Structure formats: C-alpha cells, structure tokens
C-alpha cells in the first residue's frame, strides 16, 4: 500500500458512488479534433484539399507550398479517408453501457434497523470496515450526516437522504481502515 494507491482507491470509490455521467463521452463515438475539424469544413462546402490541410499550413510561410502538396495528394487523402471511415464505423458501433451503480443506501440502512443518522452511520461502518473506528471519527461522520440531512431522524429526510448517505459511505471508504481486511 502506498500513498498513491490509497488515493486511487479513494477516488475509485467516489467514481462508483458518484459517477461522472455528465462528462462521459463514449470513446467509440469520439473521433477526435482532427476528424471533427475536417467534417465541419466538408459540411461547410470546402473542397477536400482545403478541408484537410493542416491548420499550421494555412498561415504564415510555406502556405502555398503546403496547399499545393495537399491539393496534389487529393486523390489519396488520409484525413478525408479517416472522416469517411469514422462515418462508416459509427454506423456499426454499439454504445458502451454507462449507467450508475444501482443501489439504495437509505433502504440498506433502514433494512438493517437504522432510524437515526447515528444508527445509519453505525450500519455503514459495520458494513464497510473490518475494524471499528474510534469515537472521534464516528462522531465526525454522525455530525456530518446530521448536518447534511438537517435532522437526526432518517424518516423526515427519506426523500433526499440518499446523496448524503453516499457521501458518508465515500468518507468511510476514504478512511485508512477501509483498506484493511
């Protein structure tokens, strides 16, 4: 176990509890900047030579030389071929499944008899840790959960307690003791 591995594990726990679905781009459907650029230019009506010329060659010295090279190679233009290849490939690609882990922490703690924030923390500690944590750490977690849900009882917060409970679970999974066992 090293500091780096510990941080990676902590971060993996967060990615499971709070997957970043918003920023996820399926790499099978992401052709990259170059293909996007060529696609935009082709659709805007540029000819293949102009659409596929390297950005750096379109300004400054060497502009004409670069343009001529591209134009003369028009019948074997790998950038345009890549665009067409991507267009054909994307028709056939099956999307990568990307859904958050389906679990219900509120139901989990309630099924184990928890009715208060403190009891919910105890259920999660028991489930995730092999060693008990000291009273100070436990109190910090209980205080955090109470602060997040606004009450000490779970029932009044049932409609919104899932996210705070996940954050508590993430904190527990970030604790040194989580790596034991």
């Amino acid at each position, binding site marked *: *176990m*090293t*500091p*780096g*591995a*510990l*941080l990676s594990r*902590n*971060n993996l726990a*967060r990615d499971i509890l709070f997957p970043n679905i918003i920023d996820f781009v399926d790499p099978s459907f992401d052709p990259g900047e170059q293909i996007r650029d060529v696609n935009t230019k082709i659709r805007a009506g540029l000819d293949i030579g102009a659409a596929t010329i390297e950005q750096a060659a379109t300004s400054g010295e060497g502009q004409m030389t670069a343009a001529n090279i591209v134009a003369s190679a028009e019948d074997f233009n790998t950038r345009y071929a890549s665009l067409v290849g991507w267009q054909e490939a994307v028709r056939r690609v099956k999307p990568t499944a990307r859904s958050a882990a389906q679990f219900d922490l509120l139901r989990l703690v309630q099924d184990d008899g928890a009715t208060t924030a403190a009891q919910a923390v105890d259920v999660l500690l028991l489930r995730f840790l092999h*060693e*008990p*944590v*000291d*009273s*100070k*750490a436990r109190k*910090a*977690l209980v205080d*955090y959960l109470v*602060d*997040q849900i606004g009450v000490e009882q779970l029932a009044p917060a049932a409609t919104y307690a899932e996210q705070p409970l996940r*954050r508590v679970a*993430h*904190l527990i999974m*970030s*604790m*040194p*003791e989580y*790596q*034991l066992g």
Partner: protein
Amino acid sequence: MANQNDRSSGIARRDLLRAGFGAVMMGGSGGFGLAPMFASSAAAQTSNPNRILVIVELSGGNDGLNTVVPYGDDAYYKARPRIGIKPGNLLKLDNHFGFQQTMSGFERLYRDGQMAIVHGVGYPQPSFSHFSSMAYWHTAAPNRGAPYGWVGALADQMDPANRNNFLVNIDTNQSLAVRSRQHVPLVFDDPAKFARATYADQAPVIDSVLKRNEAGSAASKFMVDITRSAVHSESLVREAWSKYKTPVDYGLVRFGLDRVAAMIAADFPTRLFYLAYRHNAFDTHVYQSDVHARLWTYTADHIAGFMADMARQGRAQDVVLMAFSEFGRRVLENTSQGTDHGTAGPVFIAGKPVRGGFYGAPPSLTNLDDGNLVHTTDFRRVYATLMREWLGMPDTRGILGGDFDTLRMFG
C-alpha cells in the same frame, strides 16, 4: 519553478521542504509520528546531503549487444546476420564499440565525459525470468531474494530519521526496489491525478478523521500513517508539477524524468528517485530492429534531456542517474529476427560528476555459457560504487549481502 524566496513563519521554503515539509505541517497540527521534523541523522549529514541518485529501470531485458554494439568483433555479425547493426549505421564511440544511430542523446553525454558504460553486468547463475531476475536486481540478492528493496534499504541507512518524501518512486505501482522497512516511499505517476477527489463539505471531515490519535491495531496505525503521508504529499507534488516550466526537450516518450526534475526544482528532500521504462518494453523477441531503435531514441533523448535540465537548474554536480535492465539478450539472433532472454548487459551511469568511459571487461562473444554472455561485473559492484563513491555511504555489506569493490567512477 518554485519561488525560492517564499517564506513561511520565517523559515525558508527550501529549508522546509528539505526537512520534510509534510512532517513540519503535521508537527504543528499534532500527533504525527511518521516523520520527525527537521531531524537529520549523522549518517545523512555525512553522506553528501545534496547528492541525488536517480535510477531508471529498462524493463523487459534490453539487448545490450545492439545498444553498445561491438562492431569491431566479427563474432557479433556472425551471430546476428540479420539484426546486427552495420558499422556505417552506428555512432562510434571508439574503434570497437558504437551506439546505434538513434542514441544521439547518449552519444552527447558520452562525448562530454558524462557517461560511464559498465560492460557485461550481471550475476552468477542468472535467471531468465523477467520476474525473478528483476527481483534479484531490486533486492540486490540474486538467487535468494529479500523482503526489502536495495533502494528502500539504502533510504533507511541514509535517513534514519525517516523524513517524508526522501524516497520517490514514479510509477503506477510501487517497485520492490523501494520497499523499505522504515520509509514510506512516495509513489505516484501522474501528478495531476495524485489527489484525493472530495466534495467541499467532505474535506473538513477527512481532516478531522486523520487528526485522531486513537488508531487501533498496528495495521490500522500503519494505514493512518500512509493516509497522512498521502494527504501531505499530494499537494506538494501537484504544486511542484504545476509550477515547473522548462524549455528542455525531454523527447517523445516521457517516462518520468521530467517529474523528477520538477521535484528537484521544488527542493523536495528526495535523495533517491526510482522510475521505469515500463511494460516490458525492451522485451524484443520479434522483429526487434525498428522497435529497439525507437526505444533507444526515446530513452536516450529523455535521459539526455533530464541531464540538460539538471545543468539548467544548476544541479548538474548533484545528480547522477543509473539505467539498467534485468538481463541482456542471447548472443544469437532468433528466427523471428529478434533476441531471446539472456544474461549480462551494459549499465549506464550518467552525470557530470561521473568519470565517463568504459568500465569492466567486455564479455566475450565466443566464450559463452550455453549461448549466453558470461558476466564480467557483478551488478552489486555498480550498486556499491553508487553507494560508497557517490552517496558516501561506506557500509554496503548490510544491503548488498557482501563486500564488493567499487569501480572508481567518481572523483
């Protein structure tokens, strides 16, 4: 680069970092037993406190004969009719040896007298297993193994005070070489990702949890120490990396020396760095010529760039780098125009303080052991040289398991 004029509580930032900044911070916030602050042992003080050793592992078993090519020996071309590199395609070092053409970075270092090449480095009864042989090199214990790495043990000897960040391993996984009885090596790969991801409201809770003193079992206490080390190192590493700017070209494949340079520039107290060209890259069984040439382009450029950067930082006299591989390749090429696992190979030691040139006897290409080179220099002699001559640690026996002559490589 870090602003070295920054001051914190009247103590220069450079001094804080060299003393183990994380330890200082925790000392102020109570109850952190991992790294006593400011304490530096007599051993560390007498062992040239500015000197840094960087170790680069070339994983996979580099083909030494196509790296430092013995073009003056007909046996080389007889053994390698298809993959032998012709004299005209070499960067000649003398009338017998030459680097392959892609190693211009190494050639510059050699020409400048800043590179030592140790021929035929290996060990008795060599293993042809990547795993076993690398473990022998990692532990300096051929054919027996040891629980701790030689670099980790060296850190314990150099720094009995166990300062934070004395030993750094740039990789995704900790190497056995840096496994230490006392030190917690700082292991990371991408500085930008070497961070704990939390939501804002979670941070105070984590801080509170880590400040407690009631950790239960020994294992629990160990994990608490690791966690504290992570928390305090992550911000330092990211800060060092984000501030580091260099005009030096580190080549096409940056396997970590740029990150080492950033940490040195930020005055980390690190004296021992360990990193690898990973994923068995040098395991060239099939059609090796092109891939091996490319590997050495990347490796030589990266190492030469690092050395240039050290000179730019004014640290050329303080930093020495060793590059090794777990074994060389067989002398005969195989039927796939590659080479198979062998025994001895060259070790490279670079740096301004190094007396450049060849060391050790070149192994014979005809007097072989079942088709393999017979090693002429035990790798622990190289380790002993670095420990005694460079780092000033006279007691090598405990780490190397015996007495080994040094190579008189440093002035």
